[in-house]
């Protein structure tokens, strides 16, 4: 038995600023570590994360006292088994790869082109606030089937939900903003449902209404919230991290722009390097053992995919951004029944459209001050801003 590292010293602020040195230590010394500040056992090695993902009968997505349930209700993300499968099946049609390619890519392309058109002449922008965020929101509003919602609406709803789901400080103002967003989104969904019931289209809400086992209006309202929560942050951060990675690695950028390395590799490396969702919760429902650690029913787990993605047992030089590394089994999309529903939307809209549009149409794109770029978060992580210039 080695001496346990001092996990009591780990603060949420430190994780927020840069979780990777902490995770590296935990992987080496205490791979299923009780971290008091997080109130959870953090699972940090690739093989143990995989084991948790593959065993939902031991590690449940249903969490007692879940902040997410309090914030946005019992969505499919906090359900298991048949109940989860039913909700997912109803939503899945529009986000499967063929539907994405045939029905959604043209729309995603128009959204990206319109945003870049508006930027070209300006010669400078914050790529997070002026491109990645609005693009993710525009794509998501269309995909969901909420045409009346502006990208600004979608972004503010998403942020309100994300903040609510992470409101560990129990800040009443955060709860209020979240409740307001729930009410506004419910109204938007209620406005959309009667038309989509009569006129089915390629959207997610339409799919939920017309599925073989259709969802009730209440189920649709509830589950749209999780799509809004997840569908902005993650693509925004994936675009931003990929852009940051290429802008700070000129040789790799040359490789990509000359076609030697595909955009697909840039996207996969970006989400491996800095997984947009770094940690998600599970709750132990029967006594078990993981990596030598005894766990009891009721224990809370943090599945740290951002650490699994930098596990030196699986990836060489894991802290380096390297689009030329061999494709590897990163876990940025999670795994098992909850495998990210937006995976194929993200791959197509980011690797296929957003990144080529940015780097292809903004000549001489560069960071104003690479040293000023700050990333934050360990549950969700991405650059806060990317101030750039180009020749206009």
């Amino acid at each position, binding site marked *: 038995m080695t001496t346990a590292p001092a996990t009591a010293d780990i603060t949420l602020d430190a994780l927020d600023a840069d979780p990777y040195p902490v995770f590296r230590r935990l992987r080496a010394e205490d791979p299923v570590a009780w971290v008091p500040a997080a109130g959870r056992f953090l699972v940090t090695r690739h093989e143990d994360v995989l084991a948790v993902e593959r065993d939902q009968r031991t590690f449940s997505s249903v969490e007692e006292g879940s902040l997410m349930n309090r914030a946005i209700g019992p969505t499919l993300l906090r359900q298991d088994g048949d109940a989860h499968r039913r909700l997912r099946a109803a939503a899945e049609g529009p986000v499967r*790869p063929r539907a994405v390619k045939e029905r959604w890519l043209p729309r995603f392309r128009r959204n990206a082109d319109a945003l870049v058109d508006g930027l070209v002449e300006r010669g400078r922008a914050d790529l997070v606030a002026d491109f990645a965020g609005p693009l993710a929101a525009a794509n998501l509003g269309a995909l969901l089937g909420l045409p009346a919602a502006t990208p600004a609406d979608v972004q503010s709803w998403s942020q309100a939900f994300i903040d609510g789901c992470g409101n560990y400080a129990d800040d009443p103002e955060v709860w209020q903003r979240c409740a307001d967003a729930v009410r506004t989104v419910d109204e938007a969904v209620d406005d959309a449902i009667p038309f989509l019931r009569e006129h089915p289209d390629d959207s997610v809400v339409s799919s939920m209404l017309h599925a073989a086992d259709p969802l009730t209006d209440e189920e649709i309202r509830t589950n749209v919230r999780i799509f809004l929560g997840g569908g902005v942050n993650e693509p925004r951060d994936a675009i931003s991290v990929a852009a940051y990675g290429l802008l700070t690695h000129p040789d790799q950028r040359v490789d990509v722009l000359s076609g030697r390395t595909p955009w697909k590799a840039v996207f996969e490396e970006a989400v491996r390097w800095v997984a947009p969702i770094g940690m998600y919760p599970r709750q132990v429902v029967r006594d078990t053992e993981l990596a030598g650690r005894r766990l009891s029913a009721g224990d809370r787990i943090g599945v740290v995919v951002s650490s699994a993605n930098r596990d030196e047992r699986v990836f060489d030089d894991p802290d380096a951004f390297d689009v030329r590394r*061999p494709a590897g*089994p990163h876990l940025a999309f999670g795994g*098992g029944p909850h*495998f990210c529903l937006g*995976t194929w939307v993200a791959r197509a809209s980011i690797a296929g459209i957003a990144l080529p549009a940015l780097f292809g149409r903004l000549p001489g794109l560069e960071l104003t001050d690479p040293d000023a770029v700050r990333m934050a978060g360990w549950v969700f992580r991405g650059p806060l801003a990317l101030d750039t210039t180009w020749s206009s």
Partner: protein
Amino acid sequence: MPTITFRQPDGAELRVDAPVGTSVMKSAVGADVPGILAECGGQAMCATCHVYVTDDRALPPVSDEEDEMLDCASAPRTGHSRLSCQLVVDEDMDGLTVLVAGEGP
């Protein structure tokens, strides 16, 4: 119980007991067969359990969902490509050999 052999691109083989009624993917994952990541847990959503089956014994037809997902696999799709999560083990599969596609070249 039927046994299925998983052959790696480098020729290494692993023979695995495969309970009738489970998927070929599950039997591979249970035995830690390299190259069968099976990210999505068997819902034909990720294409990371891609195998080549050249044995001509009857296998179930490729569904629309399996078909679209095989188009997304990292290793090249061939006429022998299958998602191992969509192959349910039966007694007739005893002795089957499948080639793990993995990440491709």
